């Protein structure tokens, strides 16, 4: 794809804002529309775009599959762990009021943490799905289309 | 000895024997010895229970409760004692006999054979001692399952097919009808205990009494009531000791014994005679007696002929129950004993003939009588007992059954019994006759009256085979003379409400 110069340049310009936007959606999620699901997908889009333009190998170099595997597990763990720790403070599962002195504030922190876990998992899982599909060796050669 | 655990000991003895036998695959002599010893020990234990019972100690043991009110319980009662004694006593004899037979005939898988054989005795004893219908059903099923490998023993396609018929009819009827009847009884009365006088009285309408009795009668497939008799001839593919013990004693007797027990302790003879619910069963039994005798006439295979004879003889017991009076019950119970002794002798004789000469068909037996005098003599005695001639045990059975028929006012049945005796003569005695009086290789147009029969060297089967069948043949004679005590004993069968009904 070396001759698609315009594409490469535009992509390189686009990727940082996409990631930034994803982060915005992510950290905004505790008190407005947004949150981990949406942010995660947007975040993943940046990487998928990168892979589409620069090739799968480039993506895997940036984001090794082992890392992806650890990260998507970690996301779930962050989510469940946040709730789990609550139990040690005598609260119910997912009751975040232990995180701060006043309950409202604590809930905000809790949601932030949980959403981070969700975002992490969604982003990495989307990338993982993309890699998994894209990395299959095609059994039909390009000419046959 | 009044410890009720003696029942358990008697029950576990054969199982223990099976366990030990299973470890002795490599030592055939030890294995066979243990098998016989186990039989002796079992018989001893049964005799101990019998003694305790005669002393009048009510023995009962409850192992555990499966569901509230549904227990695994063993209780001694007269009928069960008769069956237990017969089954365990004849086990000794067949155990000795099977050693001779299995070795003589060179069968494979002998260890499996002895294991299943012993387990079958556990099943039979469990049925005999069962204190409620549930326990009885468990051991009934167990008996079916453990005898299946015995029937299929030869593993030939015919053996497999026979065993398949065997298992499908026995399991099929027991699950489809017997179990339904049991659960029905349970939902009607809330109990399954064997209670003198029956438990159903007052819980069921006369019409349904008939239906329920039908479920039981056909459900107990081991009683070989027509039209569910096919398994019995099919099971004749088994080695002869199996046919002898299981299809003359344990399995078929378990069937009719179960029927008797159900009639006496679940329905109550009083209920049966009051409602007349068992009248159809009576006619069916009579039909069974005649039809299977006629079929037996046409069987050339010796064991098949004996099998059809068994079907006919089993129907005697059913008949005794269906007549629903005391004489009938006693006749039925006696038939369990006398027929067991008689038929086991016949089967063992058939086996001895097979071991000695590899002949299985009636038409091949010409002249063998002089070659095997003991076998054929025993065969003749047993045949006469089955026919019902004094001074042999079988005579009494017919006597009481005829008394019972008269008492019930069904004189036709006396005729049926007499015709049956004639048919017995017709299909059993020709075998002896062929053995003793026909020349070994009969040619066409040979004149029997003038020519002298050629001398024959005696060539009996191994003594392990011959001695047991002589003992049982003697037993047939002994039974005739000890009938008084037996009768007294059988009078103990509690038929409570009956005393008010009949004089």
């Amino acid at each position, binding site marked *: 794809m070396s001759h698609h110069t315009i594409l490469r340049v535009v992509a390189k310009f686009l990727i940082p804002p996409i990631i930034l936007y994803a982060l915005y959606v992510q950290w905004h999620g505790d008190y407005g529309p947004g949150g981990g*699901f949406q942010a995660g997908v947007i975040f993943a889009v940046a990487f998928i775009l990168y892979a589409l333009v620069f090739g799968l190998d480039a993506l895997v170099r940036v984001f090794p599959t082992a890392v992806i595997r650890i990260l998507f597990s970690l996301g779930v763990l962050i989510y469940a762990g946040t709730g789990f720790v609550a139990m040690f403070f005598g609260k119910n599962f997912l009751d975040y009021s232990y995180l701060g002195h006043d309950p409202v504030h604590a809930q905000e922190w809790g949601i932030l943490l949980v959403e981070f876990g969700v975002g992490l998992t969604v982003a990495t899982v989307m990338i993982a799905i993309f890699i998994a599909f894209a990395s299959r060796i095609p059994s039909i050669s390009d000419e046959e289309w | 000895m009044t410890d009720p655990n003696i029942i358990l000991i008697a029950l576990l003895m054969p199982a223990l024997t099976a366990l030990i036998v299973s470890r002795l695959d490599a030592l055939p002599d030890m294995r066979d010895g243990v098998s016989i010893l186990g039989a002796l020990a079992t018989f001893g234990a049964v005799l101990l229970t019998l003694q305790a019972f005669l002393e009048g100690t009510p023995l009962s043991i409850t192992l555990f409760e499966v569901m509230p009110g549904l227990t695994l319980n063993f209780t001694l009662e007269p009928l069960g004692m008769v069956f237990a004694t017969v089954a365990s006593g004849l086990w000794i004899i067949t155990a000795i006999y099977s050693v001779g037979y299995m070795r003589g005939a060179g069968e494979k898988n002998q260890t499996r054979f002895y294991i299943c054989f012993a387990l079958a005795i556990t099943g039979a004893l469990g049925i005999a001692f069962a204190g409620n219908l549930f326990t009885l059903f468990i051991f009934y099923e167990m008996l079916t399952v453990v005898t299946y490998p015995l029937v299929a023993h030869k593993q030939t396609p015919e053996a497999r097919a026979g065993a398949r018929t065997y298992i499908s009819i026995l399991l099929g009827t027991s699950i489809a009808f017997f179990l339904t009847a049991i659960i029905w009884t349970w939902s009607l009365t809330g109990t399954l205990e064997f209670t003198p006088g029956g438990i159903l009285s007052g819980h069921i309408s006369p019409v349904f009494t008939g239906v329920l009795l039908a479920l039981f009668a056909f459900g107990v497939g081991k009683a070989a009531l027509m039209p569910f008799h096919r398994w019995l001839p099919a099971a004749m593919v088994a080695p002869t000791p199996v046919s002898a013990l299981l299809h003359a004693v344990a399995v078929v007797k378990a069937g009719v014994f179960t029927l008797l027990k159900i009639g006496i302790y679940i329905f109550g003879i009083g209920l049966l005679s009051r409602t007349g619910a068992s009248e159809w069963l009576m006619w069916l039994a009579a039909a069974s007696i005649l039809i299977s005798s006629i079929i037996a006439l046409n069987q050339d295979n010796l064991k098949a002929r004996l099998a059809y004879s068994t079907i006919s003889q089993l129907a005697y017991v059913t008949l005794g129950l269906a007549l629903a009076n005391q004489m009938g019950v006693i006749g039925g119970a006696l038939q369990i004993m006398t027929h067991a002794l008689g038929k086991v002798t016949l089967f063992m004789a058939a086996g001895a003939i097979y071991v000695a000469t590899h002949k299985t068909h009636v038409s091949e037996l010409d002249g063998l009588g002089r070659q095997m005098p003991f076998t054929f003599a025993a065969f003749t005695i047993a045949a006469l007992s089955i026919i019902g001639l004094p001074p042999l045990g079988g005579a009494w059975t017919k006597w009481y059954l005829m008394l019972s028929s008269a008492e019930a006012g069904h004189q036709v049945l006396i005729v049926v019994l007499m015709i049956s005796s004639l048919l017995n003569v017709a299909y059993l005695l020709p075998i002896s006759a062929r053995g003793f009086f026909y020349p070994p290789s009969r040619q066409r147009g040979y004149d029997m009256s003038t020519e002298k029969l050629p001398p024959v060297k005696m060539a009996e089967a191994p003594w392990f085979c011959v001695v047991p069948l002589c003992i049982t043949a003697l037993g047939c004679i002994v039974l005739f003379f000890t009938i008084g005590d037996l009768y007294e004993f059988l009078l103990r069968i509690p038929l409570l409400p009956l005393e008010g009904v009949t004089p």
Partner: protein
Amino acid sequence: MPDTMINMDLVTGHYNYWLVVVLMMTGLFITVSRGNLIKKIVGLNLFQTSVFMLYISMGKIKGGTAPILTDDPATVYSNPLPHVLILTAIVVGIATTALALALIIRIRESYGTIEADEILEIEHQIDDPDPSPTNPANALMARIRGNR
């Protein structure tokens, strides 16, 4: 009339339900009738989407805004609960689709086709063509066929 139990303010007319029903049946029909596995998945997605729309339209309140807290207490909100539920359902739907597509790729790799009828034919060939004689039922069937 029992239908009055539905809050009529929530449902301004039934036209949305009709649309949903049409979409739903289209999706279900495609799923069931198409032999191509990908088309099946397309149908399945259509089917699921129609349900999402059913929920969302159910939660809509006439004149209601997005359910975000504002300082004005007079604001009418749409019912946020269906949105939350459907967000979850969408995630489930995506997971299902991804899994289904992954399966299709595997099927394509090992069968060389994604047409249901061709796959079925291949599977029939894998099964032993001659019925086993140990099965009494088969023996019976063979005998019946033989007699004819």
